C-alpha cells in the first residue's frame, strides 16, 4: 500500500517533469492596469476579468493593479527589463510612440492578419480620432480601450443667476471671457467666486495647452514624426496669452498652477462657476454636484478641435507566442462593442468602439444621461494626443514655463521661447538618428 502510493507519487512527479504541458492547464497571463481617475475602477476591472475567465476556460487572466499611468509605464518597463513582461497592459495612449522607439512594443499587424482581417477593417471599428495614437509608421501597436476629451463644465444655476442662458453655452473664446467676467464674484479686491478654472499640473497642463492651441488653429507637435514640437508658434502664443489674460488682465481665473482634483473640488463646491476638465470626470461631477450643470464643447478662437486622452491596450515586446495569442484574445474581447460600452458606463470614459453606441444598453444610458453624448459628439473634431520621443520630459519643458506664466513670473512670449529651446535640446538625439542623419 505504502509502496504503491509512493510509486504513484513518483510517477506523478516524473509525469509533471516530462510532460509539463499536460499538468499546466490554461494559459496564464497578466494584465497590468492603471487607475487614472478616482472611484471604483479597480473593482470594475475585477468584474470584467472574472467574466472573461468564465467565458474563456483555456486562458486564465489576472488583473494586476499598477498605480497611475506613469507608474504603469515604470512597472511595465521594469518587467520588460527583468525578462518577464506582462502579456497585456492598459497604457496611456501617448506613451506608445516612446515605447515603440525604445523597441518595447509588439507589432500587432501579424495578429490582425492571422484573424483574417485587414488593418483597415480592424481600425475601422474605432473612432477615427483615436487611430493616430494607436498606429505608428502604418503599423498597429495599440488598441484603444478607454478614451476622453476635454469638456467645458458649467454651473447652470450660477449661470442663470448671472443672467446667462446655460442652454446656449459659450462657443468662442470671446464669449467664454464674457461669461467668466459675469460669473466672477468679488468683495472689494477679493474674489469669492472664480468665473473659470483650467487645471495645470504635470500631465494635465500639457493636455490643456494642447487643447487651447488646437482651438486656436495650431498643432502641439508633428503628428507624423516624433522629433518636433511647435511651442514657439503664434497659435500657442495666442493660447497662452489668453490664459494669462484670464488670470492677470480679467482676473476671472485663479492664479498659480491648480491640479485637476483641486479644480473639480472647486467646481463642485461652487467656488468656480466653469471649468475645463476631462470627460473622465463626468461621472464624478454627476454623482457629486448638488446643482444643475451643463457640459459643452471647448470654445474656439479659430476652430473647434480637441485632443484625445485615455489609454490603449498593448502587448509588450518579448512575449512567448502562446501568451501573446491569449493576450490578443483578451484584448479583442475587452474592446468588443458590449464590453467597451459596459466599461464606458462604469467609468465615464467614452467607448472607443463605435458599435458600442448602437447596443441597446448604451442607447438607454445616453437617453438617461444626455451629457455623456456631448463627449461623443465632440469626437468629430478630436485629434491625436501629443506623443514624441521622450514624451514626458518634452511635455514638462512646456509645463514648467506655463506654470511660471500662471504664477506671474514670465510673459507668454519669452516662456514659450524658453520651452521650445529646452524641448529641442531633448529631441536632439532622436533627430540626430532620424531627420538629421543625412546620406
Amino acid at each position, binding site marked *: 500500500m505504502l509502496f504503491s502510493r509512493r510509486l504513484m507519487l513518483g510517477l506523478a512527479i516524473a509525469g509533471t517533469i516530462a510532460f509539463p504541458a499536460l499538468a499546466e492547464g490554461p494559459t496564464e497571463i497578466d494584465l497590468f492596469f492603471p487607475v487614472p481617475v478616482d472611484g471604483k475602477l479597480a473593482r470594475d476591472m475585477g468584474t470584467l476579468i472574472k467574466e472573461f475567465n468564465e467565458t474563456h476556460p483555456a486562458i486564465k487572466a489576472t488583473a494586476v493593479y499598477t498605480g497611475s499611468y506613469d507608474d504603469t509605464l515604470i512597472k511595465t518597463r521594469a518587467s520588460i527589463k527583468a525578462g518577464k513582461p506582462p502579456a497585456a497592459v492598459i497604457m496611456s495612449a501617448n506613451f506608445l510612440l516612446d515605447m515603440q522607439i525604445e523597441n518595447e512594443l509588439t507589432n500587432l499587424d501579424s495578429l490582425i492578419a492571422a484573424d483574417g482581417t485587414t488593418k483597415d477593417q480592424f481600425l475601422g471599428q474605432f473612432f477615427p480620432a483615436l487611430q493616430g495614437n494607436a498606429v505608428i509608421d502604418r503599423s498597429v501597436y495599440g488598441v484603444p480601450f478607454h478614451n476622453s476629451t476635454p469638456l467645458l463644465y458649467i454651473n447652470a444655476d450660477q449661470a442663470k443667476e448671472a443672467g446667462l442662458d446655460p442652454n446656449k453655452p459659450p462657443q468662442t473664446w470671446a464669449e467664454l471671457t464674457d461669461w467668466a467676467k459675469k460669473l466672477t464674484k468679488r468683495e472689494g479686491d477679493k474674489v469669492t467666486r472664480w468665473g473659470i478654472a483650467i487645471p495645470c499640473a504635470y500631465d494635465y497642463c500639457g493636455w490643456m495647452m494642447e487643447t487651447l492651441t488646437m482651438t486656436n488653429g495650431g498643432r502641439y507637435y508633428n503628428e507624423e514624426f516624433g522629433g518636433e514640437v511647435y511651442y514657439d508658434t503664434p497659435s500657442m502664443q495666442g493660447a497662452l496669452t489668453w490664459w494669462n489674460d484670464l488670470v492677470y488682465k480679467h482676473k476671472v481665473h485663479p*492664479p*498659480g498652477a491648480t491640479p485637476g482634483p483641486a479644480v473639480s473640488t*472647486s467646481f463642485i463646491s461652487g467656488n468656480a462657476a466653469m471649468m475645463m476638465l476631462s470627460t473622465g470626470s463626468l461621472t464624478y461631477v454627476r454623482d457629486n454636484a448638488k446643482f444643475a450643470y451643463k457640459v459643452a464643447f471647448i470654445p474656439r478662437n479659430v476652430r473647434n478641435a480637441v485632443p484625445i486622452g485615455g489609454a490603449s491596450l498593448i502587448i509588450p515586446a518579448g512575449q512567448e507566442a502562446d501568451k501573446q495569442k491569449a493576450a490578443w484574445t483578451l484584448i479583442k474581447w475587452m474592446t468588443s462593442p458590449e464590453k467597451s460600452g459596459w466599461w464606458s458606463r462604469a467609468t465615464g470614459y467614452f467607448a472607443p468602439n463605435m458599435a458600442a453606441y448602437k447596443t441597446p444598453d448604451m442607447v438607454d444610458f445616453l437617453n438617461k444621461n444626455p451629457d455623456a453624448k456631448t463627449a461623443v459628439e465632440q469626437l468629430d473634431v478630436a485629434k491625436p494626443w501629443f506623443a514624441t520621443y521622450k514624451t514626458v520630459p518634452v511635455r514638462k519643458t512646456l509645463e514648467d514655463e506655463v506654470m511660471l506664466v500662471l*504664477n506671474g513670473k514670465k510673459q507668454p512670449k519669452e516662456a514659450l521661447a524658453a520651452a521650445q529651446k529646452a524641448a529641442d535640446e531633448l529631441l536632439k538625439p532622436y533627430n540626430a538618428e532620424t531627420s538629421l542623419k543625412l546620406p
Partner: protein
Amino acid sequence: MSLAEPAALPVAASAPPRLHLAKRFSTRFKASLPAYLLLLPSLVFLALFTYGAVGRVFIDALYQRATPKAPVRFVGLDNISAVLADPAFTGAVVNNLIYAVGTAIPSIGLALLFALALSRTNALTSALRAALFLPVLIPMVAASALFLFIFLPNVGLLDYYIGRFLPVLPNWLGDSDIALYAIMVITIWKNAGYYMLFFLAGLQSVPEDVMEAAHLDGAGPFTRFRHIILPELKPTFLFVTVIAILNAVTQVDHVFVMTKGGPSNATNLVLFYIYQQAVEHYDIGKASAATLLTLAALMALTALSFRTMANREGGA
C-alpha cells in the same frame, strides 16, 4: 565577537619564515571561521540587495547611449559632468539645501521644546507625548494625501480659516514662491515628535546631582538650561541633526504625492530629480551619476559628524 578576536590581534613585528606565516594564517583563519560562517547569511543578503545594487549604480553611471537606438557605450565621467551642468540638478540641490536647513532647525527646536516641557512623566505629559508622536506613526504618503486637502486653494481647511484674514487667498502648492515652504511644514509637523523622543532620552542622562547643586547655588532655570542641560545634550543634538539632514534627502514621498516637483521645479528635491532622470527621461546613466553624487555627499556628511562625535566622546 570573541570568536573573531584572534583575527584582530596585531601582527608580530619581525618577519617570520614563510612556512610559519602560512601556518599561522591558516590557524587564524580556522579560528575565525565560525565567525565568518555566522556572518555569511548577512553577507549574502547585503551583497544581493545592497552592495550589488551599489556596484550596479557605479557601473551604470559610466555608460550612456548617444542616440535612442545606439547601444550603450562607456563614457567615463561624462554622465557626472552632464548632471552637474544640468540646471534642474543645481536647482534641486539649492531647493534641498533650503529644505534641509528649513526643516532641520524648526523641527529640532520644536522637539527640544516639547521634550523640556514634557520631561517629567505623569498622566498628562504621557498623553501629550503620545499626541505629539502621532504624526510619526502616519505614513508620509497618507499624511501628504491629507495635507493635499488642507492646502486646497479656496476651499481647503487652511484657506477656510486663514482666508478670511488675507486679502488674496494663496495657492499653497500652486505658487512657486510658497510651495516649497508648504512642503516643509509637513516635514516639520511629521518629524518634530520623532526627534522629541531622542531629546527625552537625552534629558534622562542629565545628572540629577549637578542640577541640584546648581539649584542650591541659586542658578535660575535659564542658567541651568544654558550651562548644564545644553552641554549634556550635545551628542543628542549632533545625532538628531544628522538624522534630520538624512531625512531631508531621503524622504520625498510628499513631493511625489503633492507636487511632483512642481510648479516649475520649485519643489524638486535631489531624490525626486534622480527619479525623474531614471523614469521620465529613461536615462539610467544620468540617474546613476546623480545617485553617486548624492551618496558621496551623504557619506561625507555622516563620516564627518560621527568623527566629531567620537572626538567629543573621546575628549570628555
